[in-house]
């Protein structure tokens, strides 16, 4: 293609996935303005799914065509669509499609999980009316598309400034999405404001870090940073402070301790489909970005960041696991479990080398599917006030609907890392990579925390199966086609990756290389 285009900086073939998503998001905004209300939801849903599908096809085509060091960089080296980047883009799109199915569900309650107009005062007459009848806002689709496109850019950004822009592009729509729950709106709005304020705080850290690194290396692209680290005559502390601040910004997004504080509140307050989207996709994007910064920009040849990040990984695993034990709300429980999982992912990243990277990629996909399925199931267990997420309400659910209780049990066992689920293979991969990279101490703590983490899951299982259903045990709604599909895909992938993980492991292994 290069020979027909006069300015070689933009390789459209490589950029198509992002362009399609951004374009579709813009069209989505227009749809809001011009398509009659009755049609909007269907049009938006179809449009979004088509756009994501098309973007996925472009990613696959690109991967099939082959990625080399020569054709990876584009847009003046600001974007690097290398193998790992492409894998992450593909994973983000697949996980995005599955979570969009949840976002699109409209049959579980009148009008779907989103508020009709977010500006209505909570508790007012108009609010009660919208909660009971009006169909939910359809702006969620373009917002989700913008967020996803931002993530696609984030994982391929080869330059700290582009990375920052992408970070904001995918964060801002998420803040809004968090505020749009139909029920428990105060909680939802509070979550959004918290997420926004803390996110802004973290972004400031990131940006400050960019400035510091620029001050040291005189560049913002990873290639030059890497080259200049060893030659620069500036004080080394500048670089250290810069990297630490970059890391803080990224660790906030992956929800690592001590930057995890927002996670339980936001996961609990956000509409559950959005929580699923964040838990799967934001985590993947953030880890993609973190890995690129650590592998490409600041690799260990010059100095070692493992001790500090290792301590953070250990803290993340332990704090996430221990705090999950005391949770009584399922969304918060899954939030803390997601914190602990961020720790396992960090263990993989710190394992280093291709093995570490590929184990991280595999883990992201395995965890993404499982967590989406888990949240999909949460949307089904409801009472008159919406989702019943308090643990006590799930008592005896196994008696009421054995099928869904079995599915949830399976997912919890997967989170606990039992063999023949994706949870086992994924943990095995990251721990194996860390052992291979000489980080046995991380594995020690990983195994320890996974023992602790088994308890909260077990408690839910015990609650569902070994308690008598009470008067307050909610009923399980019959899922609509979209939720069923998301749930089914999530569960099947979790099983498949537990029984026959070799194809995805191969894929991740082949993809485990960045191009500097």
């Amino acid at each position: 293609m290069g020979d027909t285009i006069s300015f070689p900086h933009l390789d459209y073939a490589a950029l198509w996935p992002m362009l399609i998503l951004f374009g579709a998001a813009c069209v989505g905004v227009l749809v809001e303005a011009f398509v009659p209300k009755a049609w909007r939801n269907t049009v938006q849903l179809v449009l979004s799914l088509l756009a994501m599908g098309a973007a996925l096809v472009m990613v696959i085509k690109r991967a099939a065509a082959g990625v080399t060091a020569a054709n990876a960089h584009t847009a003046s080296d600001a974007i690097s669509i290398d193998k790992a980047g492409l894998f992450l883009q593909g994973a983000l799109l697949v996980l995005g499609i599955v979570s969009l199915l949840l976002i699109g569900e409209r049959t579980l309650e009148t009008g779907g999980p989103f508020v009709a107009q977010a500006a209505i005062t909570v508790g007012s007459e108009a609010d009660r009316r919208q909660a009971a009848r009006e169909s939910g806002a359809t702006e969620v689709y373009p917002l989700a598309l913008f967020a996803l496109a931002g993530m696609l850019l984030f994982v391929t950004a080869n330059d700290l400034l582009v990375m920052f822009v992408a970070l904001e592009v995918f964060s801002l729509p998420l803040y809004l999405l968090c505020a749009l729950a139909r029920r428990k709106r105060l909680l939802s709005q509070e979550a959004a404001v918290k997420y926004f304020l803390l996110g802004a705080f973290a972004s400031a850290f990131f940006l400050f870090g960019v400035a510091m690194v620029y001050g040291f290396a005189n560049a913002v692209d990873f290639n030059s940073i890497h080259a200049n680290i060893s030659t620069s005559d500036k004080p080394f502390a500048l670089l250290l402070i810069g990297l630490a601040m970059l890391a803080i910004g990224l660790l906030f997004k992956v929800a690592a301790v001590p930057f995890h504080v927002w996670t339980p509140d936001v996961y609990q307050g956000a509409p559950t489909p959005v929580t699923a989207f964040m838990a799967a996709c934001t985590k993947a994007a953030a880890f993609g970005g973190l890995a690129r910064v650590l592998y490409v920009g600041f690799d260990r040849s010059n100095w070692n960041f493992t001790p500090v990040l290792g301590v953070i990984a250990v803290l993340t695993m332990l704090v996430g696991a221990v705090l999950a034990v005391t949770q009584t709300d399922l969304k918060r429980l899954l939030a803390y479990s997601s914190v602990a999982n961020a720790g396992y992912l960090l263990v993989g990243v710190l394992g280093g080398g291709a093995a570490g990277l590929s184990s991280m990629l595999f883990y992201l996909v395995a965890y993404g599917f499982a967590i989406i399925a888990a949240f999909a199931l949460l949307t089904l267990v409801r009472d008159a006030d919406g989702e019943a997420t308090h643990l006590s309400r799930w008592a005896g659910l196994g008696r009421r609907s054995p099928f869904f209780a079995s599915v949830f049990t399976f997912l919890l066992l997967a989170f606990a890392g039992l063999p023949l689920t994706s949870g086992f293979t994924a943990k095995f991969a990251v721990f194996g990579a860390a052992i291979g990279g000489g980080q046995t101490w991380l594995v020690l703590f990983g195994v320890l925390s996974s023992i602790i983490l088994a308890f909260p899951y077990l408690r839910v299982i015990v609650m569902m199966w070994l308690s008598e259903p009470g008067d307050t045990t909610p009923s399980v709604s019959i899922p609509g086609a979209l939720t069923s599909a998301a749930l089914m895909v999530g569960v099947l992938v979790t099983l498949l990756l537990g029984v026959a993980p070799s194809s995805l492991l191969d894929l991740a292994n082949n993809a485990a290389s960045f191009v500097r």
Partner: protein
Amino acid sequence: MVATLINEQAEAVVYAPATGLLSYMWLLIAIPAVSALILLLAGKAANRWGHWLGVASVLASFVLGLTLFFQLRNLENRSVVENLYSFIPVGNLRVDFGLLFDPLAACFVLLITGVGFLIHLYATGYMAHDEGRRRFFGYFNLFIAAMLLLVLGNNYVMLYFGWEGVGLASYLLISFWYGRPAAATAGKKAFLMNRVGDAGLVLGIFLMFAWLGSTNYEVVFNNIGTLGSTTVLLIGLALLAGACGKSGQFPLQAWLPDAMEGPTPVSALIHAATMVTAGVYLIARSNPIFSENTTLQTVVVSVGAITLLLGCIIGTAKDDIKRVLAWSTVSQIGYMFLGVGLGGGAYALAIIHLLAHGFFKANMFLGAGSVMHGMNDQVDIRRFGGLYKYMRITWLTFMMGWLAIIGIPPLSGFFTKEPIIVAAFSRPGWTGWLFGLAALLGAGLTAFYMTRLFILTFHGPKRWTTAKEGLVDQHPHESPAVMTIPLILLALGSIVAGGLMVTSVPQWLEPVLGPETAEHPKIAHGALTALSLVLTVAGAGLAYALFRKGTALTPQPAGVLVTAARNNLYTDAFNEAVFEKPGNWLTRLLVFVDNKGVDGLVNGLAAAVGGGSGRLRRLQTGFVRSYALSMLVGGVLVLGAFLAVQLGWMG
């Protein structure tokens, strides 16, 4: 024979590929697994025939196992592997889904499916009136499949799969009667203690990966000699932790007696005959690792000796028929650990004791179940007595189990426990005396508490009541044939198994566990046998003298030792003080720091602001400013750490 420089004794382990019928060994696992799936998914439609499917699937596995066993006997190299597919094929993380059928695995397959079949059969009668019968058989089949996977895997990851599977099935079965709080608590305790052990196993597996690059038995055993002794010790201790957790050995023994809350067939199959011996299997299977390091062997022997005495002592003070049997299981597995720890020829001795124990202990558990069945679920041996008149078959079969376990010739236990005692005395140095005397003392104690159990249950004055005489209505009666037939078969096994196996099985196991070793006990062999018989008869006689006239119906005040034994020698209290309490404190502290600590700074203000904004806000534990503060503190710490680490290295 040309001796190699690295390791003179160990011959290279070579496994042949499976051919012919042996390549269908995966069916051994698949049959019960599929049956479990059908039973658990079929729903109420399967209620009427489900339990027979469960029984048939185990019988089918047994028949297949027997056929494969005869096939294996005709082979030159009696270790065949079959790689089904590549489970994790990437890079240096290479794990195959592979099975290994060798003499050791064959023994276990026959034990699991053979005894398993009899217990399944018994359970059709025992669970006849339980509304959860189909579910019960589903879990039971699941257990068989997982246990077979455990013993048939050709690498440690497959073993771990089975290990977790049996743990899950055991947990489900202990809490099967979840209406009873004790059952649910016991299930949790089992899960907890097993997790601790499992963590050890996982670490051991990862250490093998790190140092040997593989978890395949073949690779690990052939290369273990190249590792340093500390490395071997670490791997071995990690595996031992796993073994202790699963087999209820010191210090992780507390869950096993509590697990008796499950239905009695579960206690018989899982918590006596098969699953709890998985730890012994693990060590016997890993014999090249354990034989490599003498410190490691000493640790294993010590664990075995401590546990066998612990189990005996506590067993003398318990009044619940199943608890006594459970502590005796703990103690008997202690003997097996003693055997595998002694190494050399004693590996095979531990395995034959394991097999014999599978028969007589399953026999006695099922006998206990039969007693409970006839006595309206009474478990307190103080409230039995004189039952031999009412349940003749149960009495006679139980008697065979009792004579077998205390080691009266020519029953099983005599042939299998005796050699372990001799082997313990043959250990070089003063430790030979120590462990030998422990094993000998254990034999005497075993005779005492088992006789006490037998006499109080079946003989002496009647201490139970019928409806006319008291509050509890009990009409002791013999159980139906479907329950007594397995009892009779197991009783036959208890009588003859030991004598039949004492020479044949060690020979059969030689390719896996190595040849028999000549033993030179500190006391002459004949004298030792006589001594242990005298002790046994003395223990039994003492128990008979004390309890032939019955006993009080309630616990009587007792001395320090008996009180301690009644309280499990305070091991539970120890666990609580050392593990549970600090764990709780740590959790509370973390929750406090996470939710309240930073908030504390602003909580006064928060109370004023938060009052008006409704209940929902109060659900939130945190305030955004305190979150931001904690992030800032975290940020400063991370920055400081980066600098400190780097400056430390640079300086």
